[in-house]
């Protein structure tokens, strides 16, 4: 691995009122990867996700992106730097049409609205939502909303796309379409980091998985390695035992 990583987290720690959500997390994400961020509930996946996206600041540690220190950068600036994200519960702009939602994203790199509109139409076509462009975003079905989230994020022409549980709770055919979309996104040159719960769908998709547990990195490696790692198994089974 001679090329520099696209995203690096150095000893990233985040504390909320005494609760340590992320502790000394150090990971690297490389250009062109699809990386899965997994772990049992409460492992700190969402926290790390939000830290990378810029929703709140780190308590300590630093985050580098494309060679630049972005630790202090606010969310909007990170988008301009090339990091895009989706939200777990889709946050669509309901007073606007599907197309207009995506235009907001496209404006990042196409400030003139006419060009943004063209870009948005293309992205919607790519994401399979061409038939719904004129509909108000509030009218979409939940799977369509997820695709809108993704389309909107892609329209910002990111280098890194953070997906928050986009494959959770889908029917098998919807899952297949979702997986296909993520693959196409990677093929178009965007690096993807996905937070996920649904192991069966995610493992075949990702190149690499990072497992978090209790706020720290537990294991890293290919899906095959992770699945056989006794510590990982222990973390998941352990949680299940406590619940029972």
């Amino acid at each position, binding site marked *: 691995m001679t090329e520099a990583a696209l995203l690096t987290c150095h000893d990233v720690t985040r504390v909320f009122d005494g609760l340590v959500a992320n502790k000394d997390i150090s990971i690297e994400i490389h250009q062109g990867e699809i990386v899965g961020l997994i772990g049992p509930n409460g492992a700190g996946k969402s926290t790390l996700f939000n830290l990378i996206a810029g929703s709140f600041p780190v308590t300590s540690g630093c985050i580098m992106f494309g060679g630049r220190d972005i630790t202090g950068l606010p969310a909007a600036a990170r*988008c301009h730097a090339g990091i895009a994200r989706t939200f777990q519960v889709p946050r669509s702009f309901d007073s606007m049409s599907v197309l207009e939602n995506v*235009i907001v994203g496209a404006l990042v790199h196409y400030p003139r609205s006419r060009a943004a509109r063209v870009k948005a139409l293309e992205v919607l076509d790519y994401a399979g939502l061409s038939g719904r462009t004129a509909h108000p975003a509030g009218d979409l079905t939940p799977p369509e909303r997820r695709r809108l989230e993704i389309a909107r994020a892609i329209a910002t022409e990111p280098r890194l796309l953070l997906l928050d549980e986009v494959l959770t709770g889908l029917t098998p055919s919807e899952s297949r379409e979702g997986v296909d979309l993520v693959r196409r996104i990677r093929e178009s040159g965007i690096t993807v980091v996905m937070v996920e719960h649904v192991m069966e769908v995610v493992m075949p998709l990702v190149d690499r998985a990072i497992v978090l547990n209790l706020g720290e990195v537990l294991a890293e490696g290919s899906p095959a390695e992770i699945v056989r790692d006794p510590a990982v198994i222990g973390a998941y089974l352990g949680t299940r035992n406590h619940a029972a």
Partner: protein
Amino acid sequence: MDASVSVSGAIAAFRRDRWREMALAGLLVAAAATIPLFVHDVYTMNVLILTLLYAALSQSWNILSGYCGQISLGHALYFGLGAYTTSILYVHFGVLPWFGLAIGGALAALVALALGAMCFRLAGHYFTIATIVIAEIGLTLIHNWDYAGAAMGIQWPFGPDSWASLQFARDKTPYFHFVLGLFAVTWLVTWVIEESRWGYWWRAVKDNAPAAESLGVTIFSSKMMAAAISAFFTAVGGGFYAAFLSYIDPDSVMSFRLSLLMALPAVIGGIGTLWGPVIGAAVLIPITELTRSFIGGTGAGTDLIVYGGLIMVIALARPEGLLSLLPSRSRESRT
């Protein structure tokens, strides 16, 4: 490639719609400009002038509160600022109202930025109440500021009719054309905004601020921009009002009631839309004046009953505004 064909087709259709809208507006304005040829009754003229003024004011208000979602009920502050600035500059310093209007507008924009810096961190109702409170402070201060006439207000000096001083004693037609022009400008600004990145950003911020941020929108500066533009035009309207009446006093240009009246046409007609404030003003102002003239004179308050009842009914029955009654005009059909 089918995709690119449909894209360019969609774009072409969109451009057609946009220019059609512009053409419609142009036609309306041109038609309206001829009204003074037919109408000579002073009372009717007054109602028309007020209607256009409120349309312009409501349109300005709509920019901050409708599109950007920051509901301000203290806009009378800017109206009053414009009115007083123009009046003081003219009466005490002889500065022509044309400049007075511009200066008043600029001043209002600056004040809006300063207030915004303070208040935009506030959410929803807290923000709205802050705007009300600030306007009330302004009103109270003016009430007690002798230089600005305190409670007595400011009277413009009588003089010959002239466009330079915006004073026309006998024939109100020039006022009509001026306010028509003002309205046309605010409409045009809104039209441009609707398709500009600012417009998209504001609506995104209104709908879901964190999501907007994740798409690269800086929330704070967006709100500030909306506030400044909104305040500017409101103040210009205020300056015009002062020239129109040739007399202002604190309660007529800075009261809370006025703030509500500026917002009402937009809400009734369709908040956050291009034509909403226009329709709202066209419906509301004539009705207000008519009920007041025909029923209100007895002091029995029945005009208030009618007025209040009407507002209630519309607000409840059609929350999206009267605009939604016209299917072809809804934004969703435009792509």
